[in-house]
């Protein structure tokens, strides 16, 4: 999606853009051949027209050689990096796999360094590049919403909004459980379709089980316009996923709608956006702490509205807009 948005935004500003999508395998034993293939591609010119710039987004695209390459780095091949050795890695413990891992890190470093500039979409990635590849990124260029125009500030309603796919890693479970401990009469609104139908049902059952079904609203999938309205009139927003690389789009949607955002300390990328007490809260990853946080905001409406405005301000100070992105990438 980031690729489509980027293409659109570049076109809007008068650039001639062509998106190159290479079919890729993530099987560890095919990575070597694949990288050789990418190094063989010539994207310096097309039919006599020079290609002035190459913007690469993720592994292994940055392997493609070009004299004017810019990396807008969104992730490594994580199973060779931070997920290596955890339950998520897919490489066996053989000498070959070990060597492949070392080769990936080695050649990634080489190819990333070929670029004129390397930007990432979060501080987390800057740190990872530093740690694993000993590369100092040229800066963070946050990923804006594909289209921020529908989002606006509305009234300060009586529900906390959490927009995300219903799936374990997004932890709607904690939000539902938190509603057990809340006493005030605000609600929890969950917007987003379930990844799997049975999971959606599980969540409903969870709400029933805790006796909070009357306080939790399952909205399901909605179109952009409806989502913008729901966001505009929320009291505040939640984003409580587990260790995500970036912030969720819904955090941005909340800020664009001048709403404060509550997140948990282990949510990952969202933590970069939020300054506790300024434009939102960063809470302990427990249902009770989340409940306390929600109550605290509910108790001080004025402050919450101010925090919402600060959220909108954050978008400016962090340059989370396409003008900035394009400016950096086409410098």
């Amino acid at each position, binding site marked *: 999606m980031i690729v489509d948005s980027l293409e659109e935004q570049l076109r809007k500003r008068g650039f001639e853009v062509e998106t190159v999508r290479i079919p890729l395998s993530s099987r560890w034993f095919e990575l070597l051949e694949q990288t050789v293939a990418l190094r063989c591609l010539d994207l310096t010119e097309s039919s006599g027209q020079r290609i002035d710039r190459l913007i690469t987004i993720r592994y292994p695209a940055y392997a493609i050689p070009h004299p004017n390459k810019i990396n807008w780095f969104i992730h490594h091949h994580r199973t060779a990096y931070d997920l290596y050795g955890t339950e998520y890695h897919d490489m066996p413990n053989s000498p070959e796999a070990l060597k492949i891992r070392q080769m990936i890190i080695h050649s990634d470093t*080489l190819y990333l360094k070929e670029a004129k500039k390397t930007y990432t979409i979060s501080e987390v990635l800057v740190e990872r590049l530093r740690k694993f590849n000993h590369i100092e990124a040229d800066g963070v260029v946050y990923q804006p919403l594909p289209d921020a125009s529908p989002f606006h500030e509305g009234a300060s309603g009586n529900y906390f909004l959490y927009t995300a796919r219903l799936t374990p890693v997004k932890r709607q479970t904690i939000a539902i459980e938190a509603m057990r401990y809340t006493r005030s009469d605000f609600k929890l609104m969950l917007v987003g379709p379930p990844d799997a139908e049975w999971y959606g049902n599980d969540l409903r059952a969870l709400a029933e089980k805790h006796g909070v079904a009357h306080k939790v609203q399952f909205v399901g999938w909605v179109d952009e316009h409806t989502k913008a309205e729901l966001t505009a009139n929320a009291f505040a927003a939640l984003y409580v996923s587990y260790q995500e690389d970036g912030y969720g789009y819904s955090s941005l949607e909340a800020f664009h709608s001048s709403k404060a955002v509550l997140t948990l300390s282990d949510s990952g990328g969202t933590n970069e956006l939020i300054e506790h007490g300024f434009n939102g809260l960063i809470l302990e990853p427990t249902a009770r702490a989340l409940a306390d946080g929600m109550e605290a905001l509910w108790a001080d409406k004025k402050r919450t509205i101010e925090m919402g405005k600060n959220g909108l301000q954050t978008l400016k100070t962090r340059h989370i807009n396409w003008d900035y992105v394009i400016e950096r990438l086409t410098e």
Partner: protein
Amino acid sequence: MKIAWLTPFSRKSAIGQYSAIILRELTRHVEVTVFAPDLEDTQDAWWPDCDLRFIPSLKRETILAELATFDICVYNLGNYLPFHRDIYELSAQKPGIVILHDLVMHHMFAHYYLNYDGLHVTRYTHAMTYSHGQPGAALAAEIVAGAQFWDTSLMLEYNMAKWATHGSYGVIVHSAFAKHTIEQFSNAPIAHLRFPTTPLLGESGNSTTPMLDDEKRIHLITFGNIIVNKQVIKVIEAIGDSSYLRSHVKYHVVGSISPDYETHLNIALKEYHLTHEVELLGYQPDEVLHGLLAAADIVINLRDPHFGESSWSLLEAMSLGKPTIVWKHGFYDEFPDETVAKVYSQQELQATLERLCQSAENRQQIGQAAVAYARQMFNTERYCRAFLDFVQKVRYNQPVLALTDTVSAILLEMDADSSVSMLLDPVLQELSALLDTPVNDLSADSQPHQQSAVPRYTPIATPLPTLSLQNRLAETRYYYRRFPKDIAPYLSPISRQTRIVKSTKAGGLYNIMRQLLWQLRLDQTMERVLGVRLILTLRFFLSYPNVSDLYVFSTRTAPGQARRS
């Protein structure tokens, strides 16, 4: 077609003379530009009127940019660093055809890595390992520690020709011996071309040179750089041991000799009482030398041990119709028995000398056979035709080698090695499948899907076999692993600009000290002050070897002996 021809071109260089002979004929068919590393202007050039560039006056980048505009670059390499350093370095940056004039290139590389601009033990060891495996590495260690093998047959065995020709698209040699040696490791096309015509062909007759008018003796001559393996000492011994020879011959030794060796020979002459019968004439200009040659009755052109060379001087002697005595091995044994007199022992040498001195008919027989053979075999036109055919073959195979080298460079960049050979196999297989162009492969045992139709185009030259490509891939990767800078020609221009080059300088306190001592030239000072023996012990810590030792060969070892420390 435009050819870049890199060669020493001053009158001090025999290869320069060879180049001038070839190019006069070659430029009748193709455009040639000469790049000379030993000239700053046309003065002293073998052929001043050709299209000539002077390497010392040009920046390396300029030369490389210009070389890129030629259809093929030809690098003349010989075992002498001052003339061939630039050419070697350029051949590594821009692959082309190497004409290897000396099979043994060890002296040049020892000079290059151990004496020229500091001590690069790692590079020297790597070059030896690449060329000769673990035994090469072991010998390199011994040499670095002070062993002197420069005039022994170890040089032939550890010739480093593989290093001289690495990465090239084609190799030309002038003897079957050299071709056979290079075939053992080369993955590029090789051609054995016979020498061109020497200007001396057919000139004969006795010129009246005062020096030779002497008691109707039989005049023997040995000429060229007088080095140990030319075995002048053996000739002296043969004359000394034979009363017949003593009273019937005059032996002229013409060519530069190191002072040490000259002393050594003079001692031998005194011992044998041959100071009248043998004269060491030192270096003589060509006109004088040619006069002496013309007037001589027998030419003695021994090499023992031989270094795989193709002797231009033998060619000159044969072209003049002179019976020549040679040692029976290598290049010299490739001539028919009736055209040269071959000996393989001291007794044979003496007996052959006596026989030839006694029979003018015998001498004439061999001499005539020699000139007839020379006329037939050593033909500049034929050389050029064969050369141009070879260039076609090389150019036809160049895309294949170039792509293999590119893939090697990519794999090296990724730090691939043999531990992932299972994962490299698919790459090698696809590369081989792509580049292995069978010619009319309709044999019964080929897979149906491999059977191509009769190709619409007939290949203009023989494609390389697959095994060559795989070898090249493996070896190029091994070579380039150590010296990332050298893979520059094979990377895309983009990669080349932005490569992270690992430093290859030797590290560690030990090597730093060595470098320092070399800088101070302590070895030479101490030699003068402390004498020879102590130096051999201290050599371990100091720069090694001395240039003087390399090329004019040390007299500290008894000739023919291999000494191991």
